[in-house]
């Protein structure tokens, strides 16, 4: 592309507005709307809440930020951070609040094994009423404790991802359509799996502490030790093909509404617009509609000519 007519690199914004670098007269500044709050990763690597209609400059993975433009999504887990609630079954584990979290506070939980012999897990009660046989993503933030190996699992269908923190390695997966382990810094990882809900619309998110000898397969039985633990916060279950930004809950399901970035192009004379995403993939919009709406995704750059 030659010198673009419009250029937007994620930098400057205010509530309801994203400023473009070109043209300098402001005629290509984007209007922004989102009728709920939402979260982003700030420059310090911490997750923070952003007010209604404020664009999200997101620093996940560090480096240059992106504009986060997401669809509406609902966290179906009613207590995403409070694992003392009865919704969270403690299968041969104990939970202890007050651990440093990924939000800059101390709301995370230490999950420790008991000395019983069997698998060891924090297991949510079965979540019902989901859209049947549809992709759902389960995610949570995990920090290594004394245990090196962990599994994020749906205990209904059995889809899982097992991860080794010591060697930063995915050990095994089962029945997943997508998965990711993203480093959030300070020892925190967001582990995500995407699986299909049951024919009756049920899923059961869970996180297992695995024994050091684990290699692959479903969580096995072993005799635990109270000194074996990991730190967990921020569980999310959403009907999405991939996990989206974190939606905190405390007693009800919570919906983050969609972001919308739009631009009146009628006076700009554009023939095409190129959207570049964080993975360097691109989307070319041509012809350019008079009311151009930016595509969903993590936007690294928008150029038009």
């Amino acid at each position, binding site marked *: 592309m030659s010198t673009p007519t419009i250029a937007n690199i994620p930098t400057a914004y205010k509530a309801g507005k994203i400023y473009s670098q070109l043209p300098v007269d402001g005629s290509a500044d984007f209007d922004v709307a989102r*009728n*709920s*709050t*939402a979260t982003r990763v700030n420059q310090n690597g911490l997750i923070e*809440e952003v*007010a*209604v209609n404020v664009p999200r400059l997101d620093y996940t993975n560090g480096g240059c930020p992106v504009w986060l433009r997401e669809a*509406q999504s*609902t966290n179906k887990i*009613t207590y995403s951070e409070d694992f003392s609630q009865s919704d969270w*079954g*403690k*299968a041969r584990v104990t939970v202890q609040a007050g651990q440093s979290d990924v939000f800059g506070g101390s709301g995370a939980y230490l999950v420790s094994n008991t000395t019983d012999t069997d698998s060891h*897990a924090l*297991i*949510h*009660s*079965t979540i*019902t*009423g989901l859209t049947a046989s549809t992709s759902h993503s389960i995610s949570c933030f995990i920090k290594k404790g004394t245990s090196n190996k962990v599994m994020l699992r749906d*205990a209904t269908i059995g889809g899982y991802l097992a991860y080794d923190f010591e060697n930063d390695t995915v050990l095994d997966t089962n029945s997943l359509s997508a998965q990711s382990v993203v480093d959030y810094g300070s020892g925190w990882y967001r582990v995500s799996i995407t699986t299909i809900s049951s024919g009756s619309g049920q899923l*059961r998110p*869970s996180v297992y502490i695995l024994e050091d000898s684990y290699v692959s397969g479903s969580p096995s039985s072993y005799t635990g030790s109270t000194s074996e633990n990991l730190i967990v916060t921020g569980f999310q279950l959403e009907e999405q093909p991939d996990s989206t930004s974190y*939606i905190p809950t405390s*007693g*009800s*399901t*919570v*919906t*983050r*509404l*969609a972001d919308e970035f739009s631009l009146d192009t009628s006076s700009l004379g554009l023939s095409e617009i190129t959207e570049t995403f964080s993975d360097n993939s691109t989307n070319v919009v041509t012809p350019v509609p008079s009311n151009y709406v930016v595509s969903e995704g993590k936007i690294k750059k928008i150029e038009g000519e």
Partner: protein
Amino acid sequence: MRIGKYEFDSQEKADSKIKNLGSDHPHSVFRIGNIALEAAEYDEEGELIKEAVYSTKYSVDVLFVGLDDHPYGWKSYAVDVQGDGVHSFMGLKYQDYKF
């Protein structure tokens, strides 16, 4: 912005009402479905001990922009709840934004 909580006799009725909202009133919909009136009971491993009892009503939360009252034909389906009820829109307390 205003938030309305509604109960319909069926999902089909809710679908019809939502479809007829069209684009006259900017809105965002969350379909709650049939609310559990009595929660299911589970053992420590999350295994079901007692089935939940569900409402026969189909519940929907709607956030409206630019309206001071329920849209025409919706008020008779509106319900009120304590706190946020079983669902909320992020950062928007129902009690602060209800009609």
